[in-house]
């Protein structure tokens, strides 16, 4: 195969080695409901985050990226949800930790930034109160001390006039400022791991650039590890050291960002890259969309879920489950191995749309991922 662009001389270091801070192994989440088939939202997800590293989880809606993060944070409801696998944070298995210990860790060692700051801030408490709450709970601060620290945090995330904002309610803040306040809360205890779930999706581009810059600074200055969950490949390209692409509950490709964007191997990754209009592309070239919709899937148990939309599909894809394996054809010069779940990966050129492309199956006839039995252990 001949790569289009040669990236072998890229020098940036995706964080020095060392023991992983968070190791997620074979994580699965199944939603159960009486009278309904089980829905396996996350299936055999494995990845790790080293200290100071930024890891991206990319996928479309329904790919399981948010559920993965909620499962790690133990924020999923206990009824109707089955979580399997392991998530080891600094030697502790988060999934089997007692609730009290988890509460101590959450907010102190691990924190989360959500997509919509308006619905994750409490509208009837002042911003200041919501920050000091964390400081009091986890760092044992009191009164003025907590107040001063909260104001410092607000100014650190770039909120102008922090003393005034401290006394204000969320609705008095603009969207970008609310997101900053939320980040201030999550940083209150200097967490070692920050999970950002679509932190900029609700924001304008100029504000998005500010927030991303802020997150970048945090990672560099305080050595915080960051899990960035997004559907925006542009955000990933500028921020993440390694990237996991998810489709229908499973990771289909993992590589460093240079490797992934330079040599996408999974047809889904390549398809995503081909379907995004680029600001620096020539005008007049039609986009190369992925046909069908994310709900047109086959069950992973005995096929590749992406098969119905795949331009590179071969016969095996409909009858056999591809495993997430080291890509033998690619040797990633810097970011470690390139992991891939595909029988017929993309080589060099972008794939062409298959003939008879338009997949139309409203109602998703017999293409229900929920029909699936428990998948085999991967890797």
């Amino acid at each position, binding site marked *: 195969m001949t790569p289009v662009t040669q*990236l072998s001389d*890229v020098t*940036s270091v995706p964080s020095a080695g060392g023991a992983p801070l968070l190791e997620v192994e074979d994580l699965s989440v199944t939603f159960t409901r009486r009278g309904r088939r089980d829905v396996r939202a996350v299936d055999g997800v494995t990845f790790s985050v080293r200290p100071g590293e930024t890891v991206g989880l990319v996928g*479309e*809606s329904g790919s399981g990226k948010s559920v993965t993060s909620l499962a790690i944070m133990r924020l999923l409801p206990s009824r109707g949800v089955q979580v399997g696998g392991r998530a080891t944070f600094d030697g502790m298995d988060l999934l089997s930790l007692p609730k009290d210990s988890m509460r101590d860790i959450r907010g102190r060692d691990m924190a989360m930034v959500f997509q919509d700051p308006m619905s994750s801030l409490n509208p009837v408490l002042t911003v200041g109160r919501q920050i000091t709450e964390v400081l009091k709970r986890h760092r044992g601060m009191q009164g003025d001390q907590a107040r001063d620290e909260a104001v410092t945090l607000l100014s650190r995330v770039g909120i*102008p006039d922090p003393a005034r904002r401290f006394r204000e309610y969320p609705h008095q803040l*603009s*969207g*970008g*400022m609310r997101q900053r306040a939320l980040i201030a809360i999550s940083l209150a205890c200097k967490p070692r791991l920050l999970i950002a779930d679509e932190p900029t999706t609700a924001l*304008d*581009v*100029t*504000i*998005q*650039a*500010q927030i*991303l*810059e802020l997150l*970048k*600074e945090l990672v*560099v200055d305080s050595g915080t590890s960051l899990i960035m969950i997004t*559907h*925006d*490949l*542009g*955000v*990933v*390209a*500028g921020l993440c050291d390694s990237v996991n692409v998810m489709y229908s509950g499973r990771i289909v490709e993992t590589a460093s*960002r*240079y490797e992934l*964007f*330079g040599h996408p191997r999974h047809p889904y990754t390549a*398809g*995503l*890259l*081909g*379907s*995004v*209009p*680029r*600001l*620096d*592309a020539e*005008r007049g070239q*039609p*986009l*190369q*969309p*992925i*046909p069908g*919709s*994310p*709900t047109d899937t086959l069950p992973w148990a005995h096929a590749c879920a992406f098969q119905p*939309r795949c331009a590179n599909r071969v016969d095996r894809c409909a009858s056999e489950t591809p495993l997430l394996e080291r890509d033998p054809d690619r040797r990633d010069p810097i970011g470690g191995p390139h992991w891939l779940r595909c029988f017929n990966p993309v080589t060099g050129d972008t794939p062409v749309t298959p003939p008879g492309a*338009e997949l*139309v199956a*409203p*109602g998703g006839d017999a293409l229900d991922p929920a029909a699936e039995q428990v998948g085999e252990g991967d890797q």
Partner: protein
Amino acid sequence: MSDASTTPPAGEAPATGTTSDDVLLEVRDLKVHFPITKGLLIDKVVGHVKAVDGVTLDVVRGTTYGLVGESGCGKSTLGRAILRLEEPTSGSVNFAGTDVAAMHGEELRRARRRMQMIFQDPMSSLDPRQTVESIVSEPMRAHGEPAGKKAQQQRVRELLKLVGLPQSAAGRYPHEFSGGQRQRIGIARAIALNPELIIADEPVSALDVSIQAQVVNLLEELQDRLGLTYIVIAHDLAVIKHISDTIGVMYLGSLVEEASSDELYDQPLHPYTIALMSAVPLPDPVAEESRERILLTGDLPSPANPPSGCRFHTRCPYRQETRCDDEVPALREVQPGRKVACHWAEQILSGEIRPSAESHTVAAT
């Protein structure tokens, strides 16, 4: 809005870059102000939100005009005001020779046949209790065209085929479709009466990434096939750049820059456009790291109380001591086909004025 400082200078010349004479839509100094009222029994007007404040633009037949800007800049209100879904405060909208802003009643209703809208969220713009057939044929029933149920059914089938939906879709309900397919239904409804102008307000931003491209391609294909004229409103600069021939950049209710799509990207002239461009993340780590980035500070000021002088001066990285704070820049033609509302556009272009140091960062590695 008594003073005429925002009145466009070159109202007579065709505004767009192309010299084509076939202008379908002329918007002249359009203003939409929403009153802010106070009081319990008697509403007292205490101010106005100047959502659209003096916009002038021309749209050439068969082309796509892209309106881009941050949320709250008035781009959607402008689109709605062109269709008279929002009552303009002043100004004129001249559509194929008739002033839409002055029409009333039946006349307006009939004129609307020729201009249609595609909405952002296909779920909330389609009635969940109507079948697709009923949704798509509703404009035909409203305007009695084509007459007769048979003909309308036939037309629905044609339309479904045109937007890439199966014939069986006609009898189904919106919830049975995925987001992209729902947007196709919305598009089928919009083109049902063979309109000339379609205003698409954020047509793809509610869709998944892989679906966006399908809808963008469909819009382009329909334009080629049916000779449609589009005004596409979006906040995503990459989508706008891809789809538009001419782009108008809006900030706080007025256009700050207008140029052809390629020129705007090659050499943005207005500081806001420059910042907006540099803020769009590129899906390419190498390009991402090597490019210069201009970070804007702060948020969009309130359109109820816009800054004096140039509205962008509170956030502008190129702000100068003189003129910016107190003099409203007019949208003027700096180069042929390129209009910019900035006092210092030439100096910025020549590199004489550089952005201030704190806003100017090379993307961190």
